[in-house]
């Protein structure tokens, strides 16, 4: 068999290598890999740090790209074989030769596999060349073996087997090709990570990132699936042997093939079944745990005061002795604790005597013989050991989100929440590696979440040679045994153990450290020219931030701890603490691979290349790069775009490295059983408004996340939104918005400069302990006479609707006393049904935001005095009926006025602000008079391929470079609108699509007609942009077709369309889409009655 098998393979390989189809594919793929390496790896492009940070990513990249192509081309080549067999008589002269059918089919299959492996080899050589030329990296030789072995071979074996089988059955190459391409596309686009990547035959979605610290994230899944596909591929090939239209050499040979087919198929099924079983367990376990948590939610608990943990590290297990000192919260015989279900509790003792206990998954129920009265001091000792079940982590997080592919890299690097390896350990509180009182996440009520500040004492016995990292002062007690001493109570405890080394700098009394895995100190020579000033730059950055948020960093050390690249934490509603954060330290993925800002040497070079940086010194460049790195810890949100349907979507998430949590949430807790979310609400007030995404977010989506949150808040109460299943991504923004609104309101009501100082004092007093809301409220009441609890219920359970109309703000030079100052004045009316507060800031942003409180129906005039000429004023209407909720006015010119003795302040005014002046009639696109012609121009194919999921918001982004084919609603503060500043826009066209304003004329007569012109961003970057808006206005004497010509210099706002005589009737003014501009915006028409 072997010689015929090799002969067939040899000659078939020759034939394939001469196929132009294959040659073109190979050249194109290799070229693409070359280009990609040039862009991402080489000094020329130097774009993505991830590839050089973790060098195995370089061969991975090559194989990943190649695999997409080969997975498809192999279908064609293997079906082509059988097609040729079918039509060529030459085949018969081979069929009559003495060989087994197995030799023939396997020989052909091997020929395809081997030529692809040849291309794999070339791709890897290419990658190796780039790898060896790349700076700040090394070569991981094993990766050049395991990636082709794990990705290419199973993919090819499977697809060759499947193609041969399908072709053998249906014997039509075109149909086979269509069927298999359909299957491939389904696996790529629809099935994706379904059932933990079960259908991902080409490992396109399967995370195969290989960490330099721990290797593959989920080795079991990887090998099971890859082995399963290999087995199926081989099984299919053996079935193809049986289906070959050639009489078998002998019936014995056929029996062998049958046996192999059965063995491989059974192997594949077995592995698939094992995988499915594990997947089902991973899905079921969180459900079972939540069910248990719900059941035991109100079970008696012990309030833990101190907790002594002695952890011994074994290869993939831990053994823990735990001593708990606490107080019973209720009279009870039984108390509930939680601990990861992968840990087996061996013994529980009370004051040294064994006590009964029951383990139910994650719960540990301790059973006393007699009732323990409330307030009794309890001393518990226990021992448990085992591993951490990762399925028991993040049980509140939706499975889809857990499997969601992040946008960070070309391939998914995977997610891991805890590590328990012989050489590395990382356990965060989410891993429930130490005993905690009560239950974990419950779907019944948010009351499961409670934060306790506990005196922890951690002793760690490591595997020899490893170093543990946790909060507190580490002391080596004896060989491989370390104690962490803490002089404050903390609410959560994490532990990392690895081959860690430390580098640190000191500034003032603060120590800044980096704990890195040995040999990962790529940063050590990164800032040679600022080595001496480095500590002060870091400290300055911190001090700037402290001033901004008006809070002090509470710890003596800030440490960055390197952890494996797959480490992942999720945004939570109940806390903004990511599992990356621990008192005084942050976990940082290996070599900071996720951002090229962490490639310090490369960043300095890039900075140098950038325009305008040519004259900068090395020192200045290094400072810039260092600052960019430090900025990462002060940036609240990560914003990214993804394309869904025809629309760009923005995804916002809390930056896991954001360190505001160190200033408040890690060391303080405003505790409220009734409103647990209050802590986050308070936190968002302290943090201040940081929530507005960059301007490009608005341009892309039309609304910021905050505006969308505002839209949701106009329909649902805060309490309802917190329980919503949909719009989860907006919950953070809702909390931010509601928090900012509530505390701005309290601050406005307190009407005192001392408010924030008072708050800061309270925070200092209650650091590292829980601060009950009732106490907080009482203190505010005493100091400022404001009772927060009075309006908490409304704030939580009612839709609060305030909406504001503004007069045009005026900036003028005035005399205040003897000093010339700039007075900014405006009036605002709250037209809503509830009280409200707005934030006002003058640009450029130098002063603290000013708060303006308005009762329902109230109008106020506000006057602010500043010495420096402002360029504009910005109103933030917070949670209100206004859209967008940020309105900005620019002051074109600031003139002198005759006002003397101007005084800053606010005053109540009787006359409210109206949208229309007397004699004016305004018809906005939001009014019922407005109509658009609607066309369905999304093709069926597109709908089928990319169905739009879920409900969409009414207002979309303004994309002037790619305007929509239908009239589409969008918002912008430069549009006209009483409360909602919106317009409909459309791509310029042939004049077949219209926007119409059907205006009822109650008083016949002569009118001036105006249109509210909006100049889109193309007027900003395109010098030659010009075009017209074409209107049709029927009037008493016929129909006119006035136009408004727009150029770069045209003024936006109300623009005349001429004067017309209208009789008492409804006239229809229409605007067509015919223009040379990119897009037409339909906003508002104004009629002014002429005398």
């Amino acid at each position, binding site marked *: 068999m072997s*010689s*015929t098998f090799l*002969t*067939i393979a040899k*000659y078939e390989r*020759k*034939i394939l290598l*001469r*196929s132009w189809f294959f040659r073109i594919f190979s050249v194109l793929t290799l070229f693409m890999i070359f280009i990609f390496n040039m862009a991402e790896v080489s000094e020329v492009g130097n774009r993505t740090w991830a590839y050089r940070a973790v060098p195995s990513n370089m061969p991975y990249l090559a194989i990943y790209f190649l695999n997409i192509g080969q997975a498809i081309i192999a279908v064609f080549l293997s079906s082509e074989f059988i097609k*040729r067999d079918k*039509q*060529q*008589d*030459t085949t*018969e*002269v*081979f*069929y*009559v*030769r*003495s*060989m087994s059918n197995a030799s023939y089919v396997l020989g052909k299959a091997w020929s395809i596999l081997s030529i692809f492996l040849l291309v794999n080899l070339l791709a890897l050589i290419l990658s190796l060349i780039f790898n060896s030329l790349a700076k700040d990296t090394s070569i991981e030789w094993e990766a050049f073996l395991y990636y082709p072995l794990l990705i290419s071979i199973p993919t090819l074996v499977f697809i060759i087997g499947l193609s041969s089988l399908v072709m053998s059955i249906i014997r039509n190459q075109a149909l086979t090709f269509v069927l298999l391409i359909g299957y491939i596309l389904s696996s790529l686009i629809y099935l994706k990570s379904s059932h933990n990547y079960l259908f991902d035959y080409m490992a396109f979605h399967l995370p195969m990132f290989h960490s330099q610290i721990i290797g593959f994230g989920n080795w079991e899944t990887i090998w099971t699936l890859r082995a399963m596909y290999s087995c199926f591929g081989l099984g299919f090939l053996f079935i193809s042997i049986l289906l070959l239209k*050639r*009489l*078998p*050499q*002998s019936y014995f040979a056929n029996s062998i093939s049958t046996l192999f087919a059965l063995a491989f198929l059974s192997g594949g099924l077995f592995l698939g079944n094992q995988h499915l079983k594990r997947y089902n367990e991973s899905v079921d376990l969180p459900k079972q745990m939540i069910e248990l948590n719900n059941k035991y939610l109100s079970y008696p608990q012990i309030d833990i005061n101190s907790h002594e943990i002695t952890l011994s590290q074994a290869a993939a297990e831990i053994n823990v002795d735990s001593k708990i000192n606490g107080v019973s919260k209720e009279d009870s015989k039984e108390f509930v604790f939680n601990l990861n279900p992968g840990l087996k509790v061996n013994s529980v003792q009370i004051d040294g005597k064994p006590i009964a206990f029951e383990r139910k998954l994650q719960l540990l129920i301790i059973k006393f013989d007699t009732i323990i009265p409330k307030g009794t001091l309890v001393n518990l000792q226990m021992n448990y050991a085992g591993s951490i079940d990762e399925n028991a982590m993040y049980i509140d997080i939706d499975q889809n989100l857990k499997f969601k592919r992040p946008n960070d890299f070309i391939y998914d690097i995977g997610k891991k929440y805890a590590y328990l390896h012989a050489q590395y350990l990382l356990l965060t509180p989410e891993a429930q590696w130490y005993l905690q009182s009560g239950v974990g996440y419950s779907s019944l009520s948010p009351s499961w979440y409670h934060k306790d500040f506990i005196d922890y004492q951690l002793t760690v016995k490591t595997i020899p040679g490893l170093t543990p990292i946790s909060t507190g002062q580490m002391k080596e007690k004896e060989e491989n045994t370390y104690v962490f001493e803490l002089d404050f109570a903390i609410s959560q405890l994490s532990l990392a153990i690895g081959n860690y080394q430390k580098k640190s700098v000191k500034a003032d009394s603060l120590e800044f450290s980096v704990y890195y895995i040995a040999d990962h100190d790529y940063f050590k020579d990164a800032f040679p020219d600022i080595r001496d000033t480095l500590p002060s730059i870091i400290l300055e950055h911190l001090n700037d931030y402290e001033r901004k948020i008006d809070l002090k960093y509470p710890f003596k050390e800030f440490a960055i701890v390197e952890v494996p690249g797959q480490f992942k934490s999720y945004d939570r509603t109940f806390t903004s603490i990511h599992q990356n954060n621990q008192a005084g330290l942050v976990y940082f993925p290996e070599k900071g691979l996720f951002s090229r800002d962490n490639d310090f040497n490369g960043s300095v070079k890039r900075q140098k290349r950038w325009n305008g940086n040519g004259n900068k010194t090395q020192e200045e460049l290094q400072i810039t790069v260092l600052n960019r790195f430090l900025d990462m810890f002060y940036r609240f949100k990560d914003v990214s775009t993804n394309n869904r349907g025809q629309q760009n979507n923005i995804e916002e998430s809390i930056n896991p490295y954001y360190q505001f949590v160190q200033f408040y949430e890690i060391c303080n807790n405003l505790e409220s059983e009734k409103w647990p979310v209050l802590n986050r609400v308070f936190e968002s007030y302290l943090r201040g408004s940081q929530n507005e995404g960059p301007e490009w977010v608005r341009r892309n989506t039309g609304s910021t996340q905050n505006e969308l949150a505002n839209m949701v808040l106009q329909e649902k109460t805060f309490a309802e939104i917190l329980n919503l299943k949909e719009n989860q991504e907006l919950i953070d923004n809702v909390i931010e918005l509601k928090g900012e609104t509530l505390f701005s309101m309290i601050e406005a009501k307190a009407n005192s400069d001392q408010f924030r100082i008072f708050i800061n004092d309270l925070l200092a007093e209650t650091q590292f302990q829980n601060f009950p809301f009732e106490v907080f409220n009482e203190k505010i009441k005493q100091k400022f006479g404001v009772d927060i609890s009075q309006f908490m219920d409304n704030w939580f359970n009612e839709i609060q609707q305030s909406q504001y109309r503004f007069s045009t703000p005026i900036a003028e030079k005035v005399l205040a006393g003897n000093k010339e100052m700039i007075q900014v004045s405006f009036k605002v009316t709250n037209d809503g049904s509830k009280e409200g507060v707005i934030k006002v800031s003058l640009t450029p942003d130098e002063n603290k935001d000013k708060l303006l409180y308005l009762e329902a129906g109230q109008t106020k005039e506000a006057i602010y005095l500043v010495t420096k000429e402002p360029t504009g004023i910005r109103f933030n209407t917070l949670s209100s009926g206004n859209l967008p909720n940020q309105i900005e006015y620019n002051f074109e010119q600031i003139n002198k006025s005759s006002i003397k003795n101007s005084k800053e302040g606010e005053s109540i005014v009787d006359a409210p602000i109206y949208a229309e002046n007397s004699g004016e009639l305004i018809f906005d696109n939001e009014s019922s008079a407005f109509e658009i012609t609607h066309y369905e121009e999304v093709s069926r194919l597109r709908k089928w391929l990319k169905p739009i999921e879920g409900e969409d918001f009414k207002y979309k982004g303004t994309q002037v470079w790619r305007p929509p084919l239908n009239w589409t609603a969008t918002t912008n503060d430069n549009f006209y609108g009483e409360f909602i500043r919106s317009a409909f826009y459309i791509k310029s066209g042939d004049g077949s699509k219209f926007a119409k304003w059907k205006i009822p004329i109650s008083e016949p007569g002569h009118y001036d007609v105006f249109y509210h012109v909006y100049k889109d961003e193309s007027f900003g970057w395109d010098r030659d942009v010009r075009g017209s808006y074409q209107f049709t206005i029927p009037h008493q004497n016929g129909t006119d077709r006035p136009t408004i010509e727009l150029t770069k210099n045209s003024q936006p706002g109300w623009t005349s369309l001429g004067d017309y005589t209208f009789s008492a009737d409804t006239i229809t003014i229409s605007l067509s889409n015919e223009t040379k501009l990119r897009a037409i915006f339909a906003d508002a028409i104004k009629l002014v009655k002429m005398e």
Partner: protein
Amino acid sequence: MNISIQGLNKTYPNGNQALKDVNLEIKEGMFGLLGPNGAGKSSLIRILVSLMNPTSGKVMVNGKDAAKNRAYVRSMLGYLPQDFSFFSNLKTYEFLDYAAQLAGMSSRKKRNLAVDQLLEDVGLFDVRSRKASNLSGGMKRRLGIAQALINEPKIIIVDEPTTGLDPEERIRFRNLLARLGSKDVSIILSTHIVADISSICEHMALLNKGQIAFSGPPGELIRQAQGHVWSIYATEKEYLEVTQKYEVVATVMMKDGWKITVVADEVIGYEAEAVPPNLEHAYVYFVEHTLKKIIA
């Protein structure tokens, strides 16, 4: 070498019975299988080369059942199918080398010698490096013959080998086969061209509508037609009459009319003379005359 075909039947799934109780003994030397199109020759050959199973009956090769000993039979086989025109992207010598390796020639040295020799024999040595798919029709046919002969097979089965060959190539081919037929080799030549058989076959079988109508030496078939082949000298007027009345084998235009060769038991009413039959006459006589008579 002894091939014994015993009670072979083949019925296709569409109900068409291609072979009906075929019994034949084939020994060394050239064996001609003659029959009109659709007679079942290709079916018989496909069964002989183990491309197809018979519905019933068996083929014994040297006393071994071919269906149970395919490896044995295939290892002795050289086969040239009827249509042999599509080639993969291989050069002429590579194609032959591929066939040689599959035929069991593992020694590269021997294989190279054999390939070159065969290329020489079939006159393709000069185009050995040309792609097989770029060869002319005749050259492709010769390459087909060469691959059937590689590694000196004991059984060579060729199906309509001379179709499409020019007369010179046809003669060259017949000579090549005749040379091989003198060794300890069985060559089965299936054809509908009588001349292929008459010149080289020692034994033959005539297959008609799936049945063996005749089996024996070609001389025996000719002998049976003795006295039944006539040359009729017909005028213009008689021409049409004669062609309708008798089985015409050949027609030659003469100065004053036609010389028509027919097969018939007797000729009455025309100017006719008996001529000695050749195999072609014998074949027509047998198929169109004897068989029809038997069936009638």
